[in-house]
């Protein structure tokens, strides 16, 4: 059973599921100019943080129910019993979800950046920082989804569990964009984000697999 191919095929047939988080991202980001006023200098200053925060929330929205369909139709038990290592299946699933929700968001974010009046280099840095940061949020979201699988208030729980853990990548990501706006070097922030991505990619899938086993016992 190839999880990645199956997920992508299912998403191609059922588009609304993965388009919803993108719509949420656009809607949430466009609330801020209405709330704080359309003054260009102000919008430019707060743009990195707003785009990053909205992307983070939209990613968690896309991730929080990652395993619930598998739980409902029994395929999760087959994944646990199957011969292929659960950690690998989890990684495939997270990668597939990132391709569906994270990659379009990375491509959409520069538009949001331009709408907020970000200059060219800052838009490029925003793209790079989201490319490094959205997989981190996808991996953490997968861990939260596994921990809260089948629980009451499961989705709210994922947000409460994951948001504190996702703060470092938000800090470095929006920090790099701010540095680019001020003409400072962006390497430090992006390197730290890369380090966080490597660390999370190594640690999160085995923990997610462990959490799934705990949930299914």
């Amino acid at each position, binding site marked *: 059973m190839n999880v990645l191919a199956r997920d992508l095929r299912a998403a191609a047939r059922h588009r609304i599921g993965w388009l919803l988080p993108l719509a949420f991202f656009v809607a949430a980001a466009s609330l801020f100019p209405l709330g704080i006023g359309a003054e260009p200098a102000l919008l430019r200053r707060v743009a990195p943080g707003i785009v990053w925060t909205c992307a983070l929330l939209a990613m968690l929205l896309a991730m929080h129910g990652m395993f619930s369909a598998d739980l409902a139709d029994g395929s999760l038990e087959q994944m646990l019993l199957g011969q292929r290592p659960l950690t690998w299946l989890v990684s495939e699933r997270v990668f597939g979800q990132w391709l569906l929700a994270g990659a379009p968001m990375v491509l959409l974010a520069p538009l949001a950046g331009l709408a907020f009046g970000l200059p060219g280099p800052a838009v490029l840095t925003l793209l790079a920082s989201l490319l490094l940061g959205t997989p981190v949020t996808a991996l953490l979201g997968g861990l939260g989804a596994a921990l809260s699988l089948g629980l009451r208030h499961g989705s709210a729980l994922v947000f409460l569990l994951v948001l504190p853990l996702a703060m470092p990548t938000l800090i470095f990501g929006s920090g790099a964009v701010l540095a680019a706006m001020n003409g400072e070097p962006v390497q430090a922030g992006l390197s730290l984000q890369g380090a966080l991505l490597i660390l999370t990619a190594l640690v999160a899938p085995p923990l997610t697999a462990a959490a799934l086993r705990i949930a299914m*016992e």
Partner: protein
Amino acid sequence: MDRHAPTRWTTFASPARFDRLAAAVARWCWAVALVAGLAGLYVGFFVAPTDATQGEAYRILFIHVPAAWLSMICYLAIALWSVVGWVFKVRMASRLARALAPSGALYTAMALWTGALWGQPTWGTWWVWDARLTSELILLLLYLGYIALVESIDDERRAAQAGALVALVGALNVPVIYFSVRWWNTLHQGASISLTAAPSMAQQMLLALALCTVAFWAHAIAASLTRARAISLEQEADR
């Protein structure tokens, strides 16, 4: 129950033996917390001299500092006991971890609240996005996440193991969060108020702080043991 069985380090993993030990220890700890707390507050508020720079406002330190210490120690203790409970399959250790969480959250909230009360007269503001304050706020969120997760799982084993995983991930993340918040703060805000430059303290101040710290430790132990007994009784009744 054989009263003459030899005492090993696993003896108190038995809920019945734990309950008797916890009842005895908690009784003493409640007494120590009460006596040391009253003595510490008396020395702190009536004996210790007025601070040269901060006036009387500094006296909230005797509550603020022990609360902040205990808020961090309780989280580490949760991580420790829940890992012991998970690895050695000891129910009682997991229950102790679960019992520690409300105390830890309480001290974190107290540290934030007293910090705001202290910040208003001395810094002129209730809150600054200083690295330490922000980390303490994130610690409160970690506590709330742990409590929410454990409380929403009905099965005791699953609650203990999922809680252990969250506590472990949180404990490993605390340094990462602290340093990233510090980096963010120094990058975007310039030098803010430094809390690290501690002027030399008078003897009575140190005494009051020591007494209050003892009181907070005793309260943490007493409250979590009492809560662990209650959790244990509840779970054993269900079995």
